[in-house]
């Protein structure tokens, strides 16, 4: 097991940098993971990250990108429910990057 240190706190991660314990997640570690992914978090980024956390809370799975895109469109407005918008925020994949920042496991169906 690996771990990351932020502000004196230690967070356990898997070999790809995803948090092992969802409950340990906080905004500090989210910002830190975002930094390592070369993303500076804006309100739009948080909107997606928070959406993912709510989705996980409800269904216990991280949604596939296609599902995330559709669900975001429903919740946050059609203009945000597109891959262009989401890839604009998370260039290396909204599934992978946003889930990592949100402290979720890698999305189911993300091969």
């Amino acid at each position, binding site marked *: 097991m690996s771990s990351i240190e932020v502000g004196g706190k230690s967070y356990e991660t898997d070999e790809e940098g995803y948090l092992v314990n969802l409950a340990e997640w906080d905004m500090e570690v989210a910002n830190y993971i975002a930094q390592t992914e070369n993303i500076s978090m804006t309100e739009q980024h948080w909107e997606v990250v928070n959406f993912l956390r709510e989705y996980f809370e*409800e*269904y*216990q*799975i991280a*949604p*596939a990108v*296609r*599902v995330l895109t*559709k*669900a975001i469109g429903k919740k946050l407005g059609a203009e945000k429910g597109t891959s262009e918008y989401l890839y604009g925020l998370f260039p290396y994949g909204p599934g992978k990057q946003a889930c990592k920042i949100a402290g979720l496991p890698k999305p*189911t*169906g993300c*091969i």
Partner: protein
Amino acid sequence: MSDAKKFMFVNRKAPYGTIYALESLEVVLITAAFDQDVSLAFLDDGVYQLKKGQQTKGIETKNFSPAYRALEDYDVEKLYVEKEAMEARGLTEEDFLVDVTVLSRAEMGALMDEQDVVLSF
């Protein structure tokens, strides 16, 4: 989508006692990306997978049952439950955490026969 094949996942095992139910669900979620005509059939002890109110804290195992409610988001909307199996277990349609179509054993067999691919769990 005239080239879509009919896929049926046949679930016959109770959750938690063995890994089959969880494995099946994961395969369903992964293959949902391929835009096929997917049906999920719940036979025998498989009907227990959809029971409402699962609380797994006491056995320190992940409760994966909420994910069945996400199937709709994955465009997996054909869920069939075998009537005889449901009744033999003292269950009714109200006991399930998602909307299902209840089929008699004979109807289930006929539906199975219509499939291009059947995956067994």
